[in-house]
């Protein structure tokens, strides 16, 4: 079993809860951000010493939810202080960006890190489309075309042009090209049936977050496997990545109290504006293509929000507890889903960094030895 230490880099210390989108930046404090970036990068680097296999981060816009408008900058900061850990960008929001720029920056990270890049090619969550003024209706067609173009840019031996629906380039020949051949491993989000199908088709590792029921997650994995087989390959356990909030403390009570408190900030401050914007996108566009897909996603989010922390732990939506409890929870989820990677978000909301670090050490000393060989 492999483990990824994932960080959203939330902006903490905001007192004002607002449902506005975008979140007004009058409460943003650059001096505080300076401290946060340094602490967060240190924590990410520390993940290597705590036995994690990957270190991951991602792209978000216009809110305190995450301070990485371009996570590749953070990837660059992680490359040299680390030696072996994989640098997982999970990832760039492909439909919103210039695909050639994504191909170039990822190739830089791959060369700089000596071939340690994991290339996440994400479609993004709905509200990001408002931030970059891209029609959510076009998210799928942009995603498909952009990924095909990125793969071409990485693998094509001759300069080439591209005449597409969303992207046109007359001459492409990126410098550098990636170190890993034929290209860095891909991760594509696969939290819906449609995206699971696409990840299989693209020979990518599937990334699932926001699990509301293990049965639904199993359904996505089944679709992913079928799609991969149809594309001529067989996914291994390590091609299935399951991501969740993770709090590990000395005791169950301590972990639950910490997560409960941190989730207040996460749900209230960090998710406030995003929830409003997401609702607009879901109601007014075909981001989820049809009513059935939209319904499934809304039900999933509603189920997660309605569940108590105890229900979330029991339902496999979060990992939370003493090291011994978390070992049991990991074994159970792995038994149900057959995944080979867990993606831990241990900085939940405004959970104090000391608690996060202690959790990482408990993971190294008392969790990992019991689950490494799963």
């Amino acid at each position, binding site marked *: 079993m492999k483990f990824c230490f994932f960080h959203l880099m939330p902006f903490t210390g905001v007192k004002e809860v607002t449902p506005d989108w975008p979140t007004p930046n009058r409460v943003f404090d650059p001096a505080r951000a300076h401290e946060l970036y340094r602490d967060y990068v240190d924590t990410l680097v520390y993940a290597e010493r705590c036995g994690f296999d990957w270190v991951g981060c991602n792209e978000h816009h216009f809110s305190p939810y995450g301070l990485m408008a371009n996570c590749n900058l953070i990837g660059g900061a992680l490359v040299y202080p680390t030696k072996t850990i994989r640098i997982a960008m999970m990832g760039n929001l492909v439909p919103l960006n210039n695909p050639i720029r994504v191909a170039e920056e990822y190739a830089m990270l791959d060369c700089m890190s000596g071939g340690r890049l994991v290339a996440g090619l994400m479609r993004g969550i709905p509200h990001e489309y408002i931030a970059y003024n891209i029609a959510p209706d076009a998210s799928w067609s942009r995603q498909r*075309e952009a990924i*095909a173009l990125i793969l071409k840019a990485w693998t094509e*031996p*001759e300069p*080439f*042009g*591209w*005449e597409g629906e969303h*992207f046109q380039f*007359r001459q492409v020949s990126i410098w550098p090209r990636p170190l890993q051949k034929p290209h860095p491993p891909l991760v594509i989000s696969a939290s819906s049936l449609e995206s699971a199908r696409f990840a299989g088709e693209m020979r990518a590792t599937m990334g699932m977050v926001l699990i509301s029921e293990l049965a639904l997650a199993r359904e996505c994995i089944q679709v992913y496997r079928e799609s991969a087989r149809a594309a001529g390959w067989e996914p291994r356990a390590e091609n299935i990545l399951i991501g969740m909030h993770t709090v590990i403390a000395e005791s169950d009570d301590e972990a639950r109290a910490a997560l409960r408190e941190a989730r207040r900030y996460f749900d209230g401050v960090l998710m406030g504006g995003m929830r409003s914007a997401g609702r607009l996108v879901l109601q007014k566009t075909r981001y989820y293509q049809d009513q059935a897909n939209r319904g499934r996603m809304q039900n999933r989010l509603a189920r997660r929000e309605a569940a108590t922390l105890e229900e979330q732990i029991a339902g496999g939506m979060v990992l939370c507890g003493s090291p011994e409890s978390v070992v049991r929870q990991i074994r159970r989820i792995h038994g149900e889903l057959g995944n080979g990677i867990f993606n831990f978000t241990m900085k939940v909301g405004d959970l104090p960094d000391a608690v996060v670090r202690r959790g990482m050490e408990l993971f190294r000393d008392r969790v990992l030895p019991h689950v490494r060989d799963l």
Partner: protein
Amino acid sequence: MKVEVRGSGRPLVYLHPASGVRWTSFLEKLSETRTVHMPTFPGFDGTASDETVSTRRGLAQQVGDYVQKEIGAACDVMGCSFGGAVALWLAIERPQCVDHLVLECPGGLQSVAPALRANPHAFYKALFAHPEKVVHARKPDEIEAQNRGMLAHYGAEEGKDPDLIDRLGSVQAMTLILHGTEDRIISAGTMQLLKSRLARAFLVYVWDAAHSIEVDQPERLAAVVQSFLERSDAFVVRYA
């Protein structure tokens, strides 16, 4: 050789694929600004075959004769699939006839998979990523069969023309190579090889198009071809 001419403007010779002559919407669009000359290769589409011509190289000689006699100067030449191989031979053997060269998924450079060759139905399906865009009526079965038979007549049934591959380096015409990202008949690797052998060539992938780019993505094809023909190598620069 029967030649149909449509449109007005600078001359362009269009060399058809093995399915014969079809005035696709792309060609109609092209003929708004160009005088399009479309020869029917002998034996295709119900025309009489010419026993003295039995190779794609020989067809190129006939096209060259036509250009010199009827057009009288170098002109732009576009070839599609089978016609692409003929266009390459024309550029090799009669360089004085060719100004700009446009190759739409050109043939002659690789073998066509035997399973596809043996199954006309499967081959037809492999031509299109968007069969719903096929607006022209299928030709009568006997004409389609005759056209397929002409591949053997011209030594093109297997697809590959080793002599042509050997001489690609002598093509001097500024060339645009077009390949559909969903093409299952000609591989991207073959197009990369072609580009690497030509002195002055551009390779452009047309997204979401199979072998029949003209049918699958006529607007995208027109945009890039017209830009190339109008602006030559400056077509790489975006204009406002």
